[in-house]
């Protein structure tokens, strides 16, 4: 699974996710990636989110929307909201990670698996690519 979230110069957020799904899957199984609110969500009033994880748990916990709702209703920073949601999924038994970005350009990239391919570029051109915990 791959994903991206972006903030443009007009202050608009966007989120996108693409995946090949799960090896050896059957019966037309679909994970969280294409489900809006589970693996992908964006709202200028809160944040943009793209997830990668154990799809069944990310769907049931509506992970992408959960992060945005925490920011919108609890007015907490996106990093705090994202970590709280990942912790909630972990308690359910699921694992994986997500990337999130708010209208102020604040970033969150929490995960509870062993690793996650991730990276960011900020307005000043600062670039970072990370793989391990």
């Amino acid at each position, binding site marked *: 699974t791959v994903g991206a979230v972006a903030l443009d110069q007009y202050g608009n957020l966007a989120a996108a996710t693409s995946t090949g799904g799960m090896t050896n899957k059957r019966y037309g199984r679909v994970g969280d990636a294409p489900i809006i609110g589970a693996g992908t969500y964006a709202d200028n009033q809160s944040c943009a989110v793209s997830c990668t994880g154990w799809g069944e748990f990310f769907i049931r916990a509506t992970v992408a929307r959960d992060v945005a709702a925490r920011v919108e209703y609890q007015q907490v920073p996106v990093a705090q909201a994202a970590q709280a949601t990942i912790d909630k999924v972990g308690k359910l*038994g699921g694992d994986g990670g997500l990337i999130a970005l708010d209208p102020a350009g604040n970033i969150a990239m929490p995960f509870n698996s062993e*690793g996650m391919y991730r990276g960011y570029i900020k307005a000043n051109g600062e670039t970072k690519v990370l793989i391990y915990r």
Partner: protein
Amino acid sequence: NRITLVIHGGAGTITRQNMTPEKEKAYTDALNQAMQTGYAILKQGGSSLDAVEASIRVMEDSPLFNAGKGAVFTHDGRNELDAAIMDGKTLKAGSVAGVTTVRNPITAARAVMDKSEHVLLVGPGADQFAKEKGLAIVEPSYFHTEARYQQLQKALASEKGVVTDQLNAPTKAAAPAAPGKSKTKTKAGKPQGYAEPPIFVEGRKYG
């Protein structure tokens, strides 16, 4: 100006132990290329929607990631691809699931958002929609990579022919039954109806 781009290439059993310097460099280069592609659009005043779509297309075209070319295989040896995109300004969204002939599923998701009144299209209908909108259509074999195909063979071999209901079989060792409560045992000492836990590959269980 707060233009910012964040990407991910998947989560899972990614540790220093199962990584080589060559692989690490290949992934780092591919992630950088995806980021630079999207960031260039933002710097030229492009939209966040165009930026995320362009970044994802780079990763879909790379065989390194489980998306587009390099996707994992289903039990039947097919590549079924999913993608979604959402606009924070209008809350419009588009997604596709289970497509097999669209070279860039994220562009199909964008077409669903921009050129249909729907949000989610699945299966052959989604493939048909993408074709009618003039998107790049490829043979299903385009998505094949040997590494992923071998992952599937390994998963199938480890099933030892046991057909598991992979969505409900425990993927973590089930807690031992409380004494006196264990189900009737078969000869092999396994509870009645026990199914071998399936092997979730591509980082075990991750999408």
